[in-house]
């Protein structure tokens, strides 16, 4: 099971209500994934700054955490169980080092100029409410509702998994060679924080892109190297990409109007979008990479 939703705005009216639309889409997919939920949402970048979405241990005072890190010209903004640390672009590495030293129990969930990433255990509607998703705006977002198969129901095991700056991955399916692939990637110096199969796919894609492969190329490589079944949706700073495994094991529906492009594991997730009645609705073909990009970054 599991459910995936993605929404890419082509019109300002969708951007203004992006979070509310995504919250409705995730709620519609609750039957497919009642264990946990998460989402990545992309909004305009502040010039020369990087956002790190953090998950500090419960009870952490965000301002005390900020003071402990000691990064000049940084701010912190709590949201539900997470917090977004904003630092000057050149200080991202320093911030990660400071977190590892001064707040080792705090997890960096994701980072980037545009992306914020939130995930938690619980029903999708509760998770969305806890993070105030319905009030958020942005250019595009992807989300996931999880019914756990390959690893435990934990916040860390929830999707999306961050794959690099402004990159994240959600996955419906399960991979059968993730242990071997994890060992291989570990040998090459990549770190893992869970036993989850999707994290392996996320790290794999990052590793491929670090060799100079494009996102589309990396997804094509995944079809050769990853064994199992999957529908992947990858979010990037400028859009998102979709790939189904060659036998189309997992369902997927897409819809496009002049105002949005939407992805849902089932049509039910799309049924509440404005103008869906007249949208072009289709199933993405197996083993074909679909990608949408926007002009600004």
């Amino acid at each position, binding site marked *: 099971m599991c459910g995936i939703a993605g929404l890419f705005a082509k019109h300002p009216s969708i951007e203004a209500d992006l979070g509310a639309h995504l919250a409705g889409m995730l709620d519609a997919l609750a039957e497919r994934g009642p264990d946990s939920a998460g989402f990545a949402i992309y909004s305009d970048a502040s010039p020369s700054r990087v956002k790190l979405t953090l998950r500090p241990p419960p009870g952490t005072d965000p301002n005390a955490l900020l003071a402990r890190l000691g990064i000049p010209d940084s701010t912190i903004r709590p949201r539900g169980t997470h917090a977004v640390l904003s630092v000057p672009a050149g200080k991202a590495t320093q911030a990660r080092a400071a977190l590892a030293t001064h707040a080792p129990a705090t997890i960096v969930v994701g980072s980037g100029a545009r992306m914020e990433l939130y995930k938690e255990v619980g029903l999708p509607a509760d998770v969305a409410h806890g993070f105030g998703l319905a009030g958020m705006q942005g250019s595009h977002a992807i989300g996931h509702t999880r019914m756990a198969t390959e690893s435990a129901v934990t916040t860390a095991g929830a999707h999306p998994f961050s794959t690099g700056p402004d990159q994240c991955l959600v996955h419906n399916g399960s991979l059968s060679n993730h242990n071997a692939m994890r060992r291989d990637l570990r040998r090459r110096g990549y770190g893992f924080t869970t036993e989850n199969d999707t994290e392996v796919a996320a790290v794999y894609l990052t590793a491929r892109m670090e060799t100079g492969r494009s996102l589309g190329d990396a997804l094509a490589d995944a079809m050769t190297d990853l064994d199992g079944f999957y529908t992947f949706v990858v979010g990037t700073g400028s859009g998102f990409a979709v790939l189904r495994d060659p*036998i*189309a094991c997992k*369902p997927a*529906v897409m819809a496009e109007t002049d105002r949005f492009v939407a992805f849902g594991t*089932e*049509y*039910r997730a*799309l*049924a*509440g979008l404005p103008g869906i*009645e007249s949208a072009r*609705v*289709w*199933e993405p073909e*197996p083993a074909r990479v679909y990608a949408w990009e926007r002009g600004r970054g």
Partner: protein
Amino acid sequence: MTPEPHLVDLTQAGVRELNAALHALERDTNATHWRVTNPGGRHALAVGLAAPVTVEIMGHAGYYCAGMNQEAHIVVHGNAGTGVAENMMSGRVHVHGDASQSAGASAHGGLLLIEGNAAARCGISLKGADIVVKGAVGHMSAFMAQAGTLTVLGDAGESFGDSIYEAHLYVRGRVESLGTDCIEKPMRDQHRRELLDKLTDAGLAGEVDVGEFRRFGSARTLYRFHVDNAASY
């Protein structure tokens, strides 16, 4: 004068309520025309009907729409999700848009007509129904199909008719590849007549020429045990 259809708005009534009302219909009911609005991709719409009534779904349907149908005429004015008309016994199911995977799975009788494309595994384990697809069908269509017909006006995807038994397959377009033990067979007069019958049932007689179709079926080397094929079973 045609009576007004019975309306069920699924923003007001639940799917269980809809199906219970349809199941309660006697074969000689006067309530022969139903219209379901705001389906919103909900699953299991109009399943298990057993009366000769017409049910129109006014939008996209979710999984297993019209499953186990007997005698009813079910029309989807939109796309249908996985397994439309699965295990249909008789009657007629008409999808105006596309159908997702496993359309007509295991269907024993009746006609499934899809105006658009059908995704993977259309007619999987077909057991006697007739399926007509005006667009294309996806990979592994007619997998292990035992009886009945699958007529495709467009193209067929990879591994068409894999492990097929005795179903008859007719394709007008291109076949990406044939599955194990599925072969092209000559179109004889009996097959042209059968195909014309199916096209006529689907209301397509005169729209397409039976001479444009190719026939596919079982080579019968796999489902009859032969020791040389032991590794393929």
